[in-house]
């Protein structure tokens, strides 16, 4: 009896029409998926972008200053020539070399030197 009813019920169930989706549903799905605008990936990371932005802003600021006030150009020229003079000095170059070598030596040192403090002897 139940089996017969089950068969009838199954037939009725499988004959039930599916609900009709509201109009525009498919279009909205496609708009959100395959037709969604693709974001163009930036070749720079966020920090790099910020750094580039700051450098460009500084360059623009210096350029504006140079155009507005000629004395700034002279001051900048003095600064650059002073730097070049310092770099052409042998003592400065020696100290720079010592600094670079020290930095290189520190980076080559093991991060955590091992000490035989915990070694137990029987």
């Amino acid at each position, binding site marked *: 009896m*139940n089996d017969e*009813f*089950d068969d009838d*019920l199954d037939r*009725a*169930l*499988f*004959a*039930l*029409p*599916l*609900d*009709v*989706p*509201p109009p525009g*549903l*498919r279009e*909205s*799905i*496609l708009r*959100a*998926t*395959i*037709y969604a605008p693709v974001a163009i990936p930036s070749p720079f990371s966020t920090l790099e972008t910020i750094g580039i932005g700051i450098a460009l802003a500084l360059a623009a600021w210096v350029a504006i200053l140079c155009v507005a006030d000629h004395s700034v150009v002279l001051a900048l020229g003095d600064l650059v020539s002073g730097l070049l003079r310092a770099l052409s000095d042998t003592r400065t170059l020696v100290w720079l070399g010592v600094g670079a070598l020290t930095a290189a030596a520190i980076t080559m040192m093991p991060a955590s030197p091992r000490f035989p403090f915990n070694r137990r002897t029987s």
Partner: protein
Amino acid sequence: MSTAVPETDGELVAATLAGLPDAFGTLVERYERAVYHLCLRTMRDAEEARDCTQEAFFKAFRSLRTFKPGAKFSTWIFAIAYHACCDRLAGAKRYSRAEMPDRADPAPGPEAVTEMNDDARALRAAIDALPEKYRTVITLYHLQGKQYEDIARVLDLPMGTVKTHLFRAKELLRKALVTE
């Protein structure tokens, strides 16, 4: 010389991943109605069902790479849709009963009314009156046939539980239809 047109669901998924987005359009066309039906039967709210259907396809598209070749796309998309419904139902439960949206079954359109005979209407009403867990099982049974394993996979339930739920759902339907 003609290139093979993807036909099976697996081929359509592969084609979408290979850069042919229209293949996904075919999948949407193929399963939109069934997914909407599952969402509507689970949510009993046309607007929520629409949102769940959209969310299901969006999630499926985003995670298409995780679809295992050889698996059934229908089972996969039904599982995503069912979980989207569960999330919404769980969210709705946070509100008090007074704040709950009206979950009355949307009135069928004039076409649907003429299409459905009295028996079908009675059966649909009986299904809608079932508790949620039985309603979902019977809806998936309607959509997937006697593929108990697939139903179990969608609902993330043991097969024995699915069979028990189905048995009880049918029993409740039988009682509801006999008393009418």
